[in-house]
């Protein structure tokens, strides 16, 4: 009776907020290709520029994931909040996922727009470094042995703190990427592009939220399973 309650309770809570959220994400992703298709072509890059509609939002999702991981790691390390660790590992996995999306769509865009797959431009390079940092996080958790959660949390903290320095130093080191202004100037030079971009951005952020919830649920169920194993052994 008790065991059945825990699983069912979790499902009911999830269902209330989860399904409406899921439906919204579904609707947005369905509408996105249509809106992107109808958006005007940008004058210098043509069709390939449309990658921008999901390349940039995937970076936004990655930064959100990094923020979640960094804050959760700080709470876990300094306040000892065990549930924060679940969010930390989920944030790290999602940072790696969305970072990978950005790192693949970026070169695809670059290959067509500038002729080379990789050009050491500031954004892509610092994104690559952040990706490496969070892959290192996952490696520490997997291969570090017992007590690796704290080590990984420290890595995440340092990684998040390094992010602005990485970006600034790589930026000064090389600058080829279309500058940050491209998002702000969209409104004036291509008013019709602002709406599909906003849609894609919101869709990606919502997708991030959905995936985060899923992954945290997995982490929590794993903890519950561990508790059950311990209870079993104590009998």
């Amino acid at each position, binding site marked *: 009776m008790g065991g059945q309650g825990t699983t069912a309770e979790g499902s009911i809570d999830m269902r209330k907020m989860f399904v409406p959220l899921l439906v919204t994400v579904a609707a947005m992703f369905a509408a996105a290709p249509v809106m992107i298709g109808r958006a005007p072509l940008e004058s210098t890059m043509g069709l390939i520029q449309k990658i921008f509609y999901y390349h940039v939002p995937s970076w936004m999702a990655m930064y959100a994931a990094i923020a979640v991981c960094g804050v959760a790691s700080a709470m876990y*390390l*300094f306040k000892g909040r065990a549930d924060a660790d679940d969010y930390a590992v989920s944030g790290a996995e999602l940072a790696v996922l969305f970072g990978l999306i950005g790192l693949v769509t970026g070169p695809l865009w670059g290959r067509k727009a500038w002729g080379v797959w990789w050009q050491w431009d500031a954004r892509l390079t610092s994104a690559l*470094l*952040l990706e*490496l*940092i969070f892959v*290192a996080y996952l*490696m*520490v958790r997997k*291969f*570090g*042995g017992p*007590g*690796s959660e*704290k*080590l990984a949390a*420290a*890595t995440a*903290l*340092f*990684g998040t*703190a*390094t992010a602005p*320095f*990485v970006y*600034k*130093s*790589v930026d*000064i*080191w090389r600058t080829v990427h279309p500058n940050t202004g491209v998002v702000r100037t969209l409104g004036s030079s291509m008013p019709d592009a602002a709406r599909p971009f906003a849609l894609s951005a919101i869709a990606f952020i919502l997708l991030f939220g959905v995936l985060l919830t899923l992954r945290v649920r997995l982490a929590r169920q794993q903890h519950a399973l561990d508790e059950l194993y311990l209870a079993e052994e104590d009998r």
Partner: protein
Amino acid sequence: MFLRTALLVLRKDFAIEMKSLEVLLTTLFFAVSCVLVFAFAFVKDGRAPEDAAAGILWIAIAFAGTLALGRTFERERYSETLRALLLAPAPRAALYVGKLLGMLALLGVAEGLLVPLVALLFQASAWFSRPLLLLAVLVGGTVGFAAVGTLFAAMLVRARSRDVLLPILLYPITIPVIIGGVRGTAALLASPADEVTATMWIGILFAFDAVFVTLSLWTFEPLMTE
């Protein structure tokens, strides 16, 4: 009390190291071998590519530094002295500072050998026309690298796969240091030395150092506690 503890830790490490000079000598020799490998990799027709000296210097520092970090803390692990240190009624952060100072001393000696060697082998004698700026870049970069490295090496002491995890964790996070160090030293190699660029990178390096030493001091305590 804080400073005394830190200096005591430094003296202890220094005393141990002085007996056999094991870590110092092996690190120095490794750094020299590194530079030699790069010489064979990059020198073509008797000349190295422009600015190669800056990159080679910092890569050698990074690799040798990682090795030294691993070896120093391995020593602690082997004799189980880390637990003894942690049990001591001393502020934990002071232990970190003591270890950091030891690391800085070691890397300082290594750089004292590496910089002239690289300058000699890769035609970078222009460095010595601006010794103060060169020193500032070296200090800024080394402190940043050592600060993060000491923390990570200490926290990995009890972890599995620590030998390979240290570089995996350390290198991406210290990339700003490497960039700053290389660009700063490369600026000093320009025909009239580019003091403006060098000073800019020195500024960035010291900002990085401030943030990361502070962060390391904060996190050392919770990390070392079970």
